[in-house]
């Protein structure tokens, strides 16, 4: 149990800091009411207008976010590989090249089918 003590203390500190900041913010901060503040947040001030009767809605953010995740995951795999490159040797290189090629295939698909164009 002693092993976990630092984690508990850290968690307490975290909770304490968060509640303290929120509490002090409501006490001390100035309040200026603004309509946009009460609207649902959607990657920007203006939420995407929903067409009446259910037409098409833009999915630009969605495509970009999904692409970001693809490359984000790739980086997550590349980092530990780069650190242990010497230890893994040729095997690691071959496997990582295979992995990057499969990601590039997905990238080529997105590029050719217009996933990288904003409009």
């Amino acid at each position, binding site marked *: 149990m002693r092993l976990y003590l630092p984690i508990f203390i850290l968690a307490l500190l975290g909770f304490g800091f968060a509640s303290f900041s929120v509490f002090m913010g409501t006490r001390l901060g100035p309040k200026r009411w603004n309509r946009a503040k009460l609207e649902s947040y959607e990657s920007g001030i203006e939420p995407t207008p929903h067409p009446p009767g259910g037409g*098409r809605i833009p999915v630009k953010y969605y495509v970009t976010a999904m692409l970001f995740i693809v490359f984000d995951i790739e980086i997550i795999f590349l980092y530990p590989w780069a650190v242990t490159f010497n230890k*893994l*040797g*040729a*095997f690691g290189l071959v496997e990582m090249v295979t992995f990057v090629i499969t990601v590039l295939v*997905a990238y*080529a698909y997105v*590029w*050719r089918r217009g996933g990288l164009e904003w409009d």
Partner: protein
Amino acid sequence: MTGTAAPAALAAHATLAASAPGAISAPPIEYSQLGPMLVVFGAAIVGVLVEAFAPRPARRGTQLALSLGGLAAAFVWTVVIAASRQVFANGSPGHTAIGGAVGVDRPTLFIQGTIVVLAFISVLLIGDTRFSPFVAQAAAPPGATAEQEGLAAGAMHTEIFPLTLFAVGGMMLFPAANDLLTMFVALEVLSLPLYLLCGLARRRRLLSHEAAMKYFLLGAFSSAFFLFGIAMLYGFSGSVSLAAIASTAASNTSNSTLLFAGIALTGLGLLFKIGAVPFHSWKPDVYQGAPTPVTALMASCTVVSAFGALLRVFYVAFGNLTWDWRPALWVIAVLTMVVGAVIAITQTDVKRLLAYSSIAHAGFVLTGVLAVSTAGLSSALFYLVAYGFTTVGAFAVITLVRDPGGEADHLSRWAGLGRRSPVVAGIFAFFLLAFAGIPLTSGFTGKFAVFQAAIASGETALVIVGVLSSAIAAFFYVRVIVLMFFSDPVPDGPEVVLPNVFSGTAVGVGAAVTLLLGIAPQPVLSLASHAANQLFVG
């Protein structure tokens, strides 16, 4: 074919790796033994490139050729491995590839071969574009002008083919996975494309969207349960390998809470994919809403694959704990057979009817699983082959009976079909009789085999329930046959289109195998018992 190149490559890796200080020893990768899966995944990746670079008119033909070619090559490779003297040298039960992550053994190869053949037939159905069941523009909302424009332009999402191949590759890996993490990855690889494919029906799109959404949400829940079960088992044994879990379970009796929670949660994840009661509620909705060729793929290949994984986990990892999980699985098997058979009686939609029938059949296969013997394993394998071919054939017939607005799914539309089109109605009646387990069809042989194995293991009560629910099930199958042949045809009833090469092959192969396994089942029975003779490698 197998094994000669891999050790040499491994040695090369080892020497290279040894040169660096503190080198991590690389796991051997037996490419030749993983060939069937690699071919399917490779074809899928090439398919994505085709989507990216090939001109639109050339895509469909290229994709179809690529998918069928890849699956055929995978089947040949599977047979070559099964016949290999190196993998099964000196009576060895098989080999575990990639440092124990993937099992290459006879039951797995049998299951993989079955999946590949059934997937081949399903791809034929998917490729039948005369009355394409797939949406022209999935991004267009139902009824929008963009949808009409896409239809008029004859657009088609040819991404369906690579998605299908990815799903099939995952299905092949699922029963082969020899550790729980690989199994989870395979589960996701097979599920994610299927969620997407379910939502692509051209007609009744809202129903299709609903099916995809339900399947995705419930599937994600079941995956989470499965993953949580893996965590429990890892906490118990300190390993995710099935063999290590088995050996810890044999020696360690202290932490049994973790172990039993792990068995329950991983079992839940697997039983969900099979569609056993009480984890079956997604099945009717998804089977009804999905495009019929995709339903054929799910009802045959996914069920076979999930049963393969269930058999491997329960026989290898929990093989020493039979007395602990058998009662729970017994209850589930009874519920699955009874609920599937009874609720099917009230169905009025032919695809929902087959979905409940699929639930009941999952219960019959579970009877074979519960036998916990080589006879049980071989009978379950045989049943899966028999059921898979009959199902693909039955769904292929459904694609042929059409109303102006799409397939005539409502059973009232099928009234009097036997007078209008005796051949198609006759073949469908034959499939229904096979589902009911009438002699001279594969269904009878399969049921006989699983029930015999269960009785030999002392599960007489289970077999009595099985026979009774077969009788209930026979009632509604016969009711559909009566409806088709002895009712008056509905005015302006559905049109029965002539099958072309694609759907004709699917119906023909389904009917031929159903008949063949009913009349002369011995070759496949002995192949299954040969496959089950040596259990899964640990």
